[in-house]
C-alpha cells in the first residue's frame, strides 16, 4: 500500500511501487489531464509538479513519490497558474491540446522561479516539452504575456 499526496489530498493505493506515477494518476485515480506521449521522458506530456519542481511522471516510480507533494494540471492553483492559463486562452495557444498540460506545468515552474524570463530562459525550461502541432511561437508569447500580468 502506498500513500501519495496529490493536489493536496492523500490517496492510499494498492499498487506496485515500481508503477510509473503517470499510470497511477491516469489509471488508478482518473486524473487524465496528465498525458502519455512517449513513456521515456522525451516529450514532457506527463509533466507534473513534485515539491514544486517539474517532473516527468512517466519516469518517476510511485514508490519514489511517497512523501512528496504532487500537483497535476487538475490541481494547479495560485497567481502564476492563473496567469499562465489565462494567457494561454487569450492567445489561443492550443491546437490539438494533447501536449498542453505539460507545457503549462513547465511554464508555471519557469515563471515561479523567473518572473521575467527571457526567450533563452523559455527555451531552456521548455526544451523537454514537445508540441507536434507547432504551437511554440504562441507558447513563448503566452509566457511573456503571463509574465507581464504577474509583474
Amino acid at each position, binding site marked *: 500500500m502506498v500513500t501519495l499526496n496529490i493536489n493536496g489530498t492523500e490517496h492510499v493505493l494498492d499498487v506496485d511501487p*515500481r*508503477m*510509473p506515477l503517470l499510470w497511477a494518476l491516469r489509471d488508478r485515480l482518473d486524473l487524465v489531464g496528465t498525458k502519455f506521449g512517449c*513513456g*521515456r*521522458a*522525451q516529450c*514532457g506530456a506527463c509533466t507534473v509538479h513534485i515539491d514544486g*519542481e*517539474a*517532473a*516527468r511522471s*512517466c*519516469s*518517476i*516510480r510511485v514508490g*519514489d513519490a511517497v512523501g512528496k507533494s504532487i500537483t497535476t494540471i487538475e490541481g494547479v492553483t495560485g497567481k502564476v497558474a492563473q496567469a499562465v492559463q489565462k494567457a494561454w486562452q487569450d492567445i489561443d495557444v492550443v491546437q490539438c491540446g494533447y501536449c498542453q498540460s505539460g507545457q503549462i506545468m*513547465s511554464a508555471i*515552474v*519557469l515563471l515561479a*522561479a*523567473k518572473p521575467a524570463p527571457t526567450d533563452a*530562459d523559455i527555451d*531552456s*525550461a*521548455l*526544451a*523537454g516539452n514537445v508540441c507536434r502541432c507547432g504551437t511554440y511561437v504562441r507558447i513563448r508569447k503566452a509566457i511573456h504575456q503571463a509574465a507581464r500580468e504577474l509583474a
Partner: protein
Amino acid sequence: MRKHRPLRPSVNPSGWLALLAVALVVALLLVSRDASSAPPTSRANGLSAFGTIAIVVTNPRCLNCHQADRPLQGDDRHAHIPRVERGPDNLGAVGMRCTGCHSLHANNDSSDVPGAPNWSLAPLSMLWQGLSPGALCQALKDPARNGKRNGAALMEHMGKDKLVGWGWNPGQGRAPVPVPRSELVKAMKTWVAAGMPCPDEVVMNLPSDAAGALGKEPWSH
C-alpha cells in the same frame, strides 16, 4: 597551456651520489620496460595502471557527464536529448532539473531513464572533455580540481561512490564500463602507490572512440 611536471625529479647533478642516483634511475627505467618484473610501485607500473584508469574515466558512462555545459548521452556520445544544461548549481536549468527525469535511487526500468544518487553533471573543475591523457591525469589528481581528494580519497571515490558505481550498472541500452570495478580499484591502488605518475604528451593506448571523445566538440547551441 598546462605545465607538465618533468619525467623525473630534478636532480642536482653535483657529486658522485647524484650521479649514482641518476644511474640508478636510468637503470630502473631501462629495466621497467617490462612492468611486471619491476617493483609494484614503480613509475612504469603506475603509468600502466593509469592507462586502465583512463580507459574507465573516458568511457561514455563517465565522460558523458564530465562535460562543460551539456551532458552527452549514449554509447555514441551524442548531445543529450532533450536539450539540458548545467544550470547554476550543476543540477539543471529551471524546469529541466536533472531530477525531473532522473531518479536519485536507481535506473527506471519502465522509462529506461538511468538514475543513481547525486545524479548531475560533474563539477566544472572535473571537466575532462578535450583533455590529453597527460592533462587528464593532472586533472584527476589535482586537489584543487578533484574535490579536494588525495590519493586515498580518490581510491575511495572510485571504489565506493554510488554515482561512480552506476557506470557498471547503467541499465538498458547502455554498455557498462568495460573494465570491472575491481580492476579499477586495483589500478587506482597501483597508481596511487606509484605516486600518481602522469604521462607526458605520450599517446596512451586508449580505445579509438575514447581518443575521439577526448577531442570531441561539445554540442553547440
